[in-house]
């Protein structure tokens, strides 16, 4: 055993460049993608891809929804869980916000926006709390518990929406979804604030440290006196809260709530987390990684549209990136001499 450790030491020491490549690959890949789309669009259409403010804003807006869902998802995945319900929780929040604002806008549009925001966050907390309770107290596996909530939130969203979208005519809401602050679209600014808060929490606070500890060794965390049940409950509420914020931004951007708002975004959000280096076995992952993952997906999606490739290639491209990122994660141990428990 000691001998094995020493060998691993030596190998780890011999490949610092390789170790760096493996750690930094999402960044390098993102840069590579940008270079690729830039050269393609210049060569084929004689226009710049990244030098265009509209394009940058579009990419940021593309990235915002998967990123928001991915932020909470990062916490959940690091702790060894998964939250499949976030997409429809987002839709539920969007619909409830729109309904509340439909009733209150005639009274006072600004107040209606405040109430709508409160309603979106508050309603998201309900499935979050139920998920967390099922998983932390009643020991329902996260995959199953949140899959159930996926259905419940979906049905509830469509019922509240009456099967269609729920339009709202409110200038404050429109402004929140479509105006800019210093050139930054307000939805992107809100998303960035959430990114900063989540990054700080995960990387610098005890809460973040306990999230890693639970994912690394749940029993050790329990024995260290960490209140794992309460922590797990909070993780699913954070995840749902992020979905609530995403739903709120959706309603603002489109001046309408839709139950299916987050349906296509769920898998993109999980993909962003995984591309960003989190392991679905728990214990690793970062908010910056998820940010890069979401940007990679957004650049692929927007870039392929921009260079006029049939949109269905987006799915293929994002799918390949997910698989490659997991392959890289798997090969980490062999290439750098780092030990993995899964083996």
């Amino acid at each position: 055993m000691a001998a094995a450790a020493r060998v691993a030491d030596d190998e780890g020491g011999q490949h610092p460049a390789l170790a760096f490549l493996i750690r930094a690959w999402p960044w390098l890949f993102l840069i590579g993608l940008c270079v690729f789309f830039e050269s393609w669009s210049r060569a084929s259409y004689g226009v710049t891809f990244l030098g265009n403010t509209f394009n940058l804003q579009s990419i940021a807006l593309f990235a915002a929804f998967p990123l928001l869902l991915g932020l909470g998802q990062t916490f959940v995945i690091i702790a060894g869980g998964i939250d499949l319900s976030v997409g429809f929780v987002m839709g539920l929040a969007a619909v409830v916000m729109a309904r509340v604002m439909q009733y209150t806008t005639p009274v006072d549009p600004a107040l209606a926006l405040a109430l709508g925001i409160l309603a979106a966050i508050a309603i998201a907390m309900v499935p979050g709390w139920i998920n967390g309770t099922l998983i932390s107290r009643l020991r329902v596996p996260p995959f199953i518990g949140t899959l159930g909530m996926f259905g419940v939130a979906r049905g509830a969203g469509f019922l509240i929406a009456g099967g269609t979208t729920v339009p709202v005519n409110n200038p404050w809401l429109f402004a929140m979804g479509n105006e800019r602050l210093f050139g930054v679209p307000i939805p992107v600014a809100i998303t960035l604030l959430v990114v900063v808060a989540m990054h700080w929490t995960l990387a610098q606070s005890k809460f973040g440290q306990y999230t890693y500890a639970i994912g690394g060794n749940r029993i050790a965390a329990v024995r260290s006196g960490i209140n794992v049940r309460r922590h797990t409950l909070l993780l699913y509420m954070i995840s749902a809260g992020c979905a609530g914020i995403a739903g709120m931004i959706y309603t603002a951007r489109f001046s309408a709530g839709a139950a299916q708002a987050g349906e296509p975004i769920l898998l993109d959000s999980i993909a962003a987390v995984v591309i960003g280096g989190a392991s679905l076995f728990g214990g690793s992952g970062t908010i910056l990684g998820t940010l890069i993952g979401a940007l990679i997906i957004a650049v692929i999606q927007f870039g392929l549209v921009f260079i006029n490739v049939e949109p269905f290639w987006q799915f293929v491209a994002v799918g390949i990136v997910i698989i490659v990122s997991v392959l890289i994660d798997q090969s980490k141990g062999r290439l750098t001499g780092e030990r993995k428990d899964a083996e």
Partner: protein
Amino acid sequence: MPSEPILRCEKLSKRFGGVHALENVDLVLHRGEVLALAGDNGAGKSTLIKIISGVHPPDDGALFYKGEKLRLRNPRHAREIGIETIYQDLALADNLDVGANVFLGREPTKSFLGLQRLDRARMRAVAHEVLDTLDIDIARHKFVQPVRNLSGGQRQAVAIGRAIYWKAELLIMDEPTAALGVPEQRKVKELILRLKAQNVAVLFISHNLVDIFDVADRILVLRRGIKAGERRPSETDHNEVVRLMIGG
């Protein structure tokens, strides 16, 4: 008899459903003493240490810690009063570094713009210090890596270091040498003796009679939940201990 024992257990009993996991077990442990807990599988060793470390309350019987009757609420309570437990392989969060593991659950923070931020530099510095006092050799660069990159003996040392840093007066160890290579087993045994020299009371479970005879001051043998006997290594031999373990 030296001074007052740090731990005294009187007639501890524990049932799980209809199974008597432990029946009327007495135990005495002094500071600076190493007590080995021996017994076959299902003899009640784990139940006994779980009672002492606050995981299970006993159904009957009483614990006295430093002379006072003790009612443990949970493992955290046990740790707060100086009873630390090191479980065989579930002690560390493998994805965190040495400092984070030493401080797991009790991290130091400093104020940063009104927010409480983890003080990683301090965690790392203290981890160095603690492992130095235990004379443990871990390469500097390993301190910033997840502990899964450490050897089994080093990991055991980190767990022990954590207990020492948190002023363990009574240290419970579950199979501390299992799953280790021979040189590492020797290291861990040295560590136990060093703890003893620092006046820590050590209670350890082991299946390995050689280890038991090497470091224990007394051996308590359990058999099917009852105390089969208690011996000093100088007064007994492997055969007798095995006989006590399996009966007959």
